């Protein structure tokens, strides 16, 4: 399966999972589908047949509310049966709305409260440096999540300790729970902030697979510096009426006709 097809399947799964479960955050899941498809579609050194192999790349979803998309990606590449996705958000399931590692092969870290994942990624990267291990650490954050001060503690630390084996990816879809990022707590000039904190910055269209692959090439971008890839994305990407009202589709769940319309759009995507 190529990454375009994988992204399409992640989107369809995420829509079905959130609609069946009546859960929020479909917009956030659709936003990262292409990034996940490139990462899990052959880029990350992970192996479903050997999920705990020591030299695997570590991927952390810090924006845990988009967990449906990660579960879908992991199931599609064989970490667990695709049928298990049907239990997402259901009574008695271990596939929680926010991503959980307990009993779920392939998930490194449970998150859900924002501002936790980057620090843990920093710890893993620091351990790798100290132990001369070669794996890399990828942490996917949301833009709204960058409001959390804990991230900036981690950003300071990672640069100070020259953790060039750490790559943060920002899903910069410009919307958070109640309004746009610009109207909530503006992050701009975002690139300059990262640069001034000592990170190497790459910017990319987060839905252009060739562009994402290119941004992930030749890491670290700069020896002795952690890298951040600021991925410009569209919340609700792939479903036109969600893209048009990103704030609404942070929490809204597609039901009935809305679900059918959304599914049709995602299935007809090429």
């Amino acid at each position, binding site marked *: 399966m190529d990454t375009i097809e994988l992204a399409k399947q992640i989107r369809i799964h995420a829509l079905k999972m959130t609609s069946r479960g009546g859960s929020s955050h479909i917009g956030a899941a659709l936003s990262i589908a292409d990034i996940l498809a490139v990462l899990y579609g052959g880029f990350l050194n992970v192996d479903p047949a050997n999920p705990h192999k020591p030299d695997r790349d570590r991927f952390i979803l810090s924006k845990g509310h988009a967990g449906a998309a990660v579960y879908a990606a992991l199931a599609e590449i064989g970490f667990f049966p695709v049928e298990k996705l049907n239990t997402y958000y259901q009574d008695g399931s271990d596939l929680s709305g926010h991503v959980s*590692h*307990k009993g779920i092969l392939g998930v*490194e*870290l*449970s*998150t*859900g*409260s924002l*501002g*936790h994942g*980057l*620090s*843990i*990624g*920093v*710890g*893993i*990267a*620091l*351990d*790798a440096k*100290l*132990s001369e291990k070669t794996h890399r650490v990828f942490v996917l954050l949301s833009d709204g999540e960058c409001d959390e*001060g*804990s991230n900036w*503690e*981690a950003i*300071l*630390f990672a640069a100070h300790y020259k953790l060039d084996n750490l790559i943060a990816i920002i899903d910069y879809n410009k919307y958070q729970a109640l309004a746009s990022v610009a109207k909530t707590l503006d992050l701009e000039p975002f690139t300059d902030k990262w640069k001034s904190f000592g990170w190497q910055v790459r910017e990319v269209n987060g839905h252009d697979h060739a562009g994402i692959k290119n941004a992930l090439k030749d890491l670290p971008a700069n020896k002795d510096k952690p890298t951040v890839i600021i991925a410009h994305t569209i919340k609700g990407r792939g479903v036109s009426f969600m893209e048009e009202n990103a704030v609404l589709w942070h929490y809204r769940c597609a039901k009935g006709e809305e679900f059918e319309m959304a599914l049709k759009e995602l299935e007809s995507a090429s």
Partner: protein
Amino acid sequence: MRDHFIKRLSELAEHDSRIMLVTGDLGFRVFDEYRRRFPEQFINAGVAEQNMTGIATGMAMEGRIVFTYSIANFPTLRCLEQIRNDACYHGANVKVVSIGGGFSYGALGISHHATEDLAIMRSLPDITVVSPCGCWETMEATDAIVNTPGTCYFRLDKSAGDDAPLDKEDKFKIGKARVLREGNDCAIIVTGGILEEVWQAAELLEGRGISARIVSMHTIKPLDRETILQVCRDVGVIITVEEHTIYGGLGGAVAETLLDNGVLPRAFLRIGLEAGFSSIVGSQQYLRKRYGLDAESICNRIQAMSIH
């Protein structure tokens, strides 16, 4: 306690490269020797406790045994969610060390009064909570914590009681209380360095015809239910002493244990902090006296109970 902790940790770190010490920019001069001997096993995370706990979890997930270190409420309450969601939920070998239990930093003000930490930390799932009563228990507990998988809260005190082992059979074990003094009229169950006041109180009580047993409850979680129930059956009168709020800490835990098991004491008293914040400052000794936690006050309150 602090120096004993560092001494033992240094001995352990020498033979176990998994041990890592991460400080939140505290411990001036305290870590000089450790740092010199084990530069690869020391990190100053800066004044950033959330990140300190997060990176500790990350390193622990990769196989290290990571001690986070700060004072008073900084390594606990400031980053409580990192301890809960990250360290505890992932079963990470993160050992949270706070120097300055109770009024250890009494003169520094309420930000530095660690007076609810035991209650809060013991309510977390998948955590061990250790609060030694003296320097011997501190050293032994340091060993035990390294060898106990999972997340741990280790509360150290500026003061320390005499907790020397009674004999060769007296071993330190997490979750196993120690009877430090025999006595048959009442039992004082104590945690933390305030043991020093309890010893004096027991001597004063002896002079007033009351024989007090002293039990060191150095582990708050898992709690030694067996010893608590046995002591209550033996003696019938239970007093708990902690330099901590009486709500939800040692006293609360002992009360829960007794009631849950239907073992009811004839008389029961929780000695600890009952008022709210202390805007009054002072030395640990001064504040203990002010809030009725010094030996004389403890003795008087026990004497006023219906013991016989």
